[in-house]
């Protein structure tokens, strides 16, 4: 009995100190997507990369139980997604995601404005 109590208390202590640390952002497949973009520029790869970015930036990748939290969108992801949409000739969604980036991270305003001028948006 004493042994059982001892081990159970140890387990409880361990469970107390083990905390499920959450990262600030949810990147998912960001690394592989960005790396594939650096290595190849085919349209097929761009579509695949945009799909993986879509999961990060929109609620398509989120589970039904968990609500999509926009604060967990990492900085620069919306701009990357907009850039990919421009390469697929979807300017409307690109513009909307650029504005979303500015709303989430105001320090990106100067960069986004220069990018819009450069890309003709």
């Amino acid at each position, binding site marked *: 009995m004493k042994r059982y109590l001892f081990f159970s208390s140890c387990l409880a202590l361990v469970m107390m100190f083990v905390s499920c640390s959450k*990262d600030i952002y949810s990147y998912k497949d960001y690394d592989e997507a960005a790396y594939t*973009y650096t290595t190849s520029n085919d349209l097929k790869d761009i579509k*695949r990369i945009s799909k993986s970015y879509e999961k990060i930036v929109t609620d398509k990748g989120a589970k039904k139980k968990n609500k999509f939290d926009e604060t967990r969108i990492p900085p*620069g992801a919306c701009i990357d997604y907009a850039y990919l949409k421009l390469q697929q000739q979807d300017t409307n969604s690109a513009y909307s995601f650029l504005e979303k980036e500015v709303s989430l991270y105001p320090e990106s305003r100067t960069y986004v404005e220069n990018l819009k001028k450069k890309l003709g948006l």
Partner: protein
Amino acid sequence: MRKILVVFLCLSFVLFSCSSNKKAAEATPNAPISTEQAPKTEKQIAKEKAEATKSRQKQKEKELQQRRKAQQKEQERLTKEAEAKKKAAEKEAKKTKKEQDDLIKNAEKTEKERIKEERRKEKEALINADKAEKEAIIQQENAEREAIKEAERLEKERIKAEKEAAKAEKEALKAEENALKQIEKSSVDSEATPVAEKKELSTMEQILAMMDENPRDKNKDAKKEKTNKSTSTSSTDKAIESSTISRGEEEQVVSISEKEKKQMMKDASKGEDSKIKKVYRKVVPERFERETTYPKLYKENPKSILVLYPWNRSQYDKADEMLFVAASKELTYKGYYVLPVLPMLDEYRKDTTKLSSHYTKLTDLRQYKEKYGVDAVLFVTIYRFEKPWWTTNITAVAHYNLISTSTLDTLFSRQADFNYDSQMPPRDNTKDKLVEDEKEAQYLGIMEQMQRYVFLDMPVGPHHKKYASDQKKKSSQRREQKYKVTVKPS
């Protein structure tokens, strides 16, 4: 020869024909001898004709045989002549070959001799050149030695002259002192000429001021002691003159004796740790607070960072791309806003001299601030990223420098030596993988882990929960920001 053969054949034919007629005449011995011959029958005529034809055929055959024999003889003779000709031609050919070989040998001999002579001449030339160089070097060294000796002699003469000048100045000062004393005595004795004394004093004061201001004058201590003598009655020993700190507003150390040097070294070493403490600190390095290790970063407080494309000096071509992605991701986890990867990468590819850690200069950082609105820029150079074939370890060495765009100060600097004891991960058979190469996927993961260790003790940014509350957090990184990490997967 042909004519002889033809004549021979004709004669033989003639003889043969004659003999055949005789034979034909002799062949009919039993013929009746009568003046009136009996009439011949047809059979007899045919027989005669057949016999004649036979005889002619025999003659012809004989002639043919004779002709063949003659032809054979002629052919044998011709063959013999041809063989003789061949032998003669072979002999001639052999002779010519011998002659040609002899010519070739002679030519080779001459070439060899020529080459030998050329080499001998080259060697002689090289030897002569070496001798000349050595002689020139020796002459140069001698000239240098002489120049050095002359310079030393000139310096000695200059020092002597300076000493003599110093002596002369001392004597002049003594004379001036005596003059001053006399002036003082005369002023005490007679008060009638205060104006002239004042003038003299003013002139003397001016002279003293000029000598004090003269930078070439080396006897400043003597003059200061003179002024101090007028105010105080200090001693004038030589030991004190050489090693004292002059009083007054200006403090200047002229020279220090050896005893004082040793004493100063002892006093300085009193503050250091003992040997035991030093060994302990090697094993357990001292922990410092973040605000002491990164004071400039807390002062500047950057919010946005631009990661420049790394300068890849390793043997792995894709290390720069991997690090570019991983470093930008890790800095976002630290709470900073990092400019996006994809458009910056395309901008870099248009002109590789811009937005690269290799070619950007500090003067370009102000432009980046105006153009991109960033507060700091990260320079990265990759020195090593490899996996030797004889180990399972992956080593990565890189240098990081975070520089402010406003003040151009280094806010964060790190020399990372990362060693990862890797094991090949299990095969991932999922479809639609973005990175299909398993090796590249493994390296990408290792690069991410490396960045996590590099930026482990970096102060957090504004998007982090612990922003502005991590100054007192201690870290075991050394003040030099140089460390080596070996990681093994659990």
